[in-house]
């Protein structure tokens, strides 16, 4: 399960939090190896625990949020019809009032990576071109 939950895509997204984690790990290393301020166990313990606890908290939150989002994405991919978002297609106002949007694709509005990756990228390219033309 977990290998599927944390696939390449998800890991790539999580890089964003890996950077601060690496920074904090680096500082933990520095503080352990290099201590110009003399020995004082209590203060050293506080010094390390501040970075270690923050590191741990960020790690745990990143793990669980990554898992939740990636599971939710899998759900979206399995049955996209149930997770529709209102779309430009809903031009007809009478349609807009009906609560289900079966015919439309989901996700254009909020997610940059809807299941139809290819379609989304194509749409992006189209945008770019039209911008270049101007």
């Amino acid at each position, binding site marked *: 399960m977990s290998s599927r939950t944390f696939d390449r895509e998800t890991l790539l997204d999580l890089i*964003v939090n890996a950077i601060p984690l690496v920074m904090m790990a680096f500082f933990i290393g520095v503080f352990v190896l290099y201590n110009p301020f003399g020995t004082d166990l209590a203060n050293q313990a506080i010094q390390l625990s501040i970075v270690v606890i923050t590191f741990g908290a960020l790690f745990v939150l990143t793990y669980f949020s990554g898992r939740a989002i990636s599971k939710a994405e899998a759900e979206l991919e399995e049955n996209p019809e149930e997770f529709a*978002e209102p779309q430009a297609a809903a031009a007809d106002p009478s349609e807009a009032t009906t609560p289900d949007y079966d015919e439309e694709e989901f996700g254009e509005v909020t997610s940059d990576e809807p299941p139809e990756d290819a379609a989304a990228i194509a749409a992006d390219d189209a945008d770019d071109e039209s911008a270049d033309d101007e």
Partner: protein
Amino acid sequence: MAGEQLALTVLMGVFLVGVATLVSRMENLRAYTPLVSGDAGYGDSTATSHKPSGLIRWLTTVDHKDIGILYGIYATIAFVWGGLAVMLMRVELTTPALNVLGGTGTYNGLLTSHGITMLFLFGTPIIAAFSNYFIPLLIGADDMAFPRINGIAFWLLPPAALLIWAGFFLDPLTGGAVGAAETSWTMYTPLSAEQANPGVDLMLLGLHLSGISATMGAINFIVTIFTERSPDVNWANLDIFSWTILTQSALILFAFPLLGSALIMLLLDRNFQTAFFAVDGGSPILWQHLFWFFGHPEVYILVLPPMGLVSWILPKFSGRKLFGYKFVIYSTLAIGVLSFGVWAHHMFSSGIDPRIRASFMAVSLAIAIPSAVKTFNWIATMWNGNIRLTAPMLFCIGFVANFVIGGITGVFLAAIPVNLVLHDTYYVVGHFHWIVMGMIAFAGFGAIYYWFPIVTGKMYQKRLAKMHFWISEIGVAVTFFAMLLLGYLGMPRRYATYEFNGLIAPLAQVTTLHQVATIGAFIIMLGQLIWVWNLTQSYLEGPVVEDEDPWNLKETGQYSREFEWFGEQLDTTDEDTPTLAADGSGEPSDD
């Protein structure tokens, strides 16, 4: 000594975790269903169709849209109060010796009131205005999870403001026996513990009340976003504004109760001779730790939702989706966590242990990463996009630009050696004003313009809105660049006058820069006058919006739930009703 304290702290922590575990295991506690939730809450959706009219409606409303509007009006009033206070201060600072306020006491009172008003009575409520009105629409909920608690949370705020401002009103009535608090917004001890003025106690009580209100709101949003989402919204397509409100609410949940406890301890110190923060008691540094453990998360409580607003609105006028939606989510969460590990960067010069300083510097540098990631995402979203420079978009772009300056000055301040030079100078004031005015207020303006058609059914005047933007941006740049420079020259903050020894700072340049800052402040004020005029006049006389898609979002596939809801309202409104006032959620029509 420090070792014993540490051991005690760990012991206490273990004890508290134990208590928490025990409580969470009690069966009957789990099974308890609060009366206010569930059915009672849903009953409201039918109640909205029979709202009483006039004033009674506004006093009794539990509709999230009405409460959102109330928050907005409240925040605007607070913005005016805080703005007028600072204008008086800027006038006082035009020349070194000028004394228009009749004494430094008044200046200190205005300074305190300005800071607390802008952060607690304008910042938090203006965000709550947007979240209350729009989160339920964006996630497809009928209303907030606890509509009545929502109402109570708002109605705690007016008394909070009265208490916080009480010193000003009571001063003339009591012949000066009760005056405005002069503690500054940080309320540092021993000063705040030793000032006999009862106005300080009133202010502390008011702050406590506003904290309770914020906490109730936060719980409500967490529950709403977790449990009231429509079935087709899940974590992978939840909108970015809701994500930031969720994170903000979590921060509030951890930060505000702590402020409340610290305030009680301060009140006890003031009135009951306890010694929590006394020099030979718990020590004034304890106050600083407690205050900033709340205070730094508080600044992110204020800035995350505006970041969410911009992440939501900016793509709409760039003609493409937000670049890196998930990057923005993860970096929001990261900021939320990291913001609890940086508080002592406000205390670098207080003589705390150098090892501990180093740790806080490390985490403060780490928090800059997720902030920068967001900036790059916004820029990438606009890159090669089809940009439409509407007023909301202008404010979003200004927001990003101002964040670059505000954020980078913050990173400088987080470096211990730089901090020791610049701490408590105008540089710090410049830093956070680029953020609080340049970002929080700007995102608020952008969102107000963007959603103006939904809330009022009218369109604002576009020329005036653009003027509002340009005048504000120029004013911000003039005022707050001058402050950064004043800081470099060594001008200390929180002084009513600056007739000092030329060895401290070059007086001529300092005077000029203060004058520049004062002029800038008047420019900002001019912009806000235009804003108030524009909104009031457009609300009363502006053209009625009949298009369900006033921003042409369908063209780029970005038509979203809140406008869809707006469209439904347009369809169901009687032809002959002039304002659609979404099921009566405009302001009371002029009857």
